[in-house]
């Protein structure tokens, strides 16, 4: 069968991917630049296509707590929003992580802080990877850099979320959300039946049957010893994720003297900068982290032994650079170049920054 091709916005790709991944429920609230996710879903009548529930909530607070409710039932549930809306979800996200619930949160990042701008940005890296909510927790964080990846990562994220019983986040940005590219669609995965859910998620609150104890989903434990054990268990899990789930892409890195590290839209800009660099005879490669948590620490550490310097390209004041530096441990020079406020750096600027801050600096 010929593969199904579509020209889609990143946001639309997320929506279509959700339906095809057998998602049970989407709960969201409009915000630019990601409102097309819910708009696409509503237009598609997924309740007719697969029985998927799509509900416009009264706020992001309600959305994330609806996700919590659904996730407790072992359902494949998700929400999407953009920066200010994701900030409002931080309590809920901390609860989801604390209660070890699988779910998907998509952040189509815009420029902050505050109301900021609706233009693309990457300034929510810290929030996503270090924990914008309270307590020690981690989100599995995937950073797509094309519309195809916006599509693909929905399934990947759900799979990882259920594998580790942990919320997953797709950290995208306004550019990827709004742009259209060619997308290869996969076949529909059927939604799980209740019986299948009970088998896959024996912990889920599906109704206490005589054959088991009642299931309770909570993030509370007033007994410090038990609470500590729970936290240690979470840390064990994060370690396991770190060991098993690192994803990244390298381009022209084999004989590179310098490396750009960049994810998402920035990585696309760097791709072009690589071309320009080649024309100038500069040996630079691109290391693109795909998972931001787990961050490819070992891969970057290893690479650091072979190169002269790293330029971190982020549409922020420099956030991922901390993780790069933690990986590199002072062995080589690591600098940041980026733009803020919704501006996307140009490939020329990126290359210039490499020449000035790393090669010349």
């Amino acid at each position, binding site marked *: 069968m010929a593969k199904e*091709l579509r*020209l889609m916005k990143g946001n639309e790709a997320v929506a279509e991917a959700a339906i095809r991944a057998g998602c049970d429920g989407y709960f969201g609230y409009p915000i*630019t*630049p990601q409102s097309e996710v819910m708009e696409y879903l509503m237009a598609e009548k997924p309740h007719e296509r697969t029985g998927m529930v799509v509900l416009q909530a009264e706020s992001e607070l309600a959305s994330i707590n609806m996700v919590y409710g659904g996730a407790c039932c072992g359902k494949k549930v998700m929400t999407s929003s953009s920066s200010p809306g994701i900030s409002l979800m931080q309590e809920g996200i901390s609860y989801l992580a604390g209660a070890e619930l699988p779910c998907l949160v998509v952040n189509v990042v815009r420029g902050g802080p505050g109301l900021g701008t*609706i*233009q693309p940005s990457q300034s929510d890296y810290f929030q996503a990877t270090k924990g914008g909510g309270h307590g020690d927790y981690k989100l599995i964080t995937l950073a797509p850099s094309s519309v195809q990846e916006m599509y693909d990562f929905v399934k990947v994220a759900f799979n990882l979320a259920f594998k580790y019983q942990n919320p997953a986040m797709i950290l995208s940005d*306004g*550019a990827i959300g*709004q*742009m*259209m*590219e*060619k997308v290869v669609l996969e076949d529909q995965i059927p939604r799980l039946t209740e019986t299948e859910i009970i088998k896959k998620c024996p912990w889920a609150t599906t109704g206490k049957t005589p054959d088991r104890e009642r299931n309770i989903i909570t993030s509370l434990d007033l007994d410090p010893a038990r609470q500590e054990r729970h936290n240690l268990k979470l840390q064990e899990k994060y370690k396991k994720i770190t060991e098993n789930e690192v994803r990244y892409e390298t381009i022209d890195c084999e004989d590179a003297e310098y490396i750009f590290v960049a994810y998402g*839209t920035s990585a*696309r*800009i760097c*791709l*072009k900068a*690589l*071309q320009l660099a080649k024309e100038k005879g500069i040996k630079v490669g691109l290391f693109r982290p795909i998972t931001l948590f787990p961050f490819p620490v070992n891969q970057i550490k290893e690479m650091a032994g072979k190169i002269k310097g790293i330029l971190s390209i982020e549409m922020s004041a420099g956030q991922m650079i901390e993780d790069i530096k933690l990986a590199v441990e002072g062995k080589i020079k690591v600098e940041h170049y980026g733009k803020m406020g919704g501006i*996307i750096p*140009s*490939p*020329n600027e990126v290359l210039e920054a490499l020449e000035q801050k790393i090669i010349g600096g």
Partner: protein
Amino acid sequence: MTEEIIIAGFGGQGVLSMGKILAYSGIMQDQEVSWMPSYGPEMRGGTANVTVILSDNRINSPILTQYDTAIILNQQSMDKFEPEVKPGGLLLYDPNGIIRPPERKDINIYKIEASKEASNLGLPKIFNMIVLGGYIKIKPIVKLDNVMLGLKKSLPPRYHHMIPDNEKAIKRGLEIVEDVQKV
């Protein structure tokens, strides 16, 4: 082959959908494509523009500061994008509403009276298809057949009855586009 295009004009002029049809046409001939709009409230009543890239290879940056082609449909866009056409590149514009026509000498400049023609035809909505026709006449990077396929793909089925009018408009565009520098 890589063609990097900016299409810019007012909100209601069908800028985004022209870009979308063009992108879909690229897909129809197995190219990689990207379509990157300006977005947000500035679109409300204001200007709209979209960057379209068609390429035989993986597309890197979907956002550009220099274009092979600029398709310009109002004065603000002319002011903004005329300087951003690559030397040797193409600028195609509709003179309706343009007070200061383009002046660069190092690019190829074409005009198309699409707005006028659309109202002549009594079909103001297909104005953008006339422009598209003009463009593919000058730069046949996509084959007409593929444009027609792209058009069909990008329209929801409930609008398919509009395809004949659109086809007519594209073809009319092929005819009426003029090389300004030759004139």
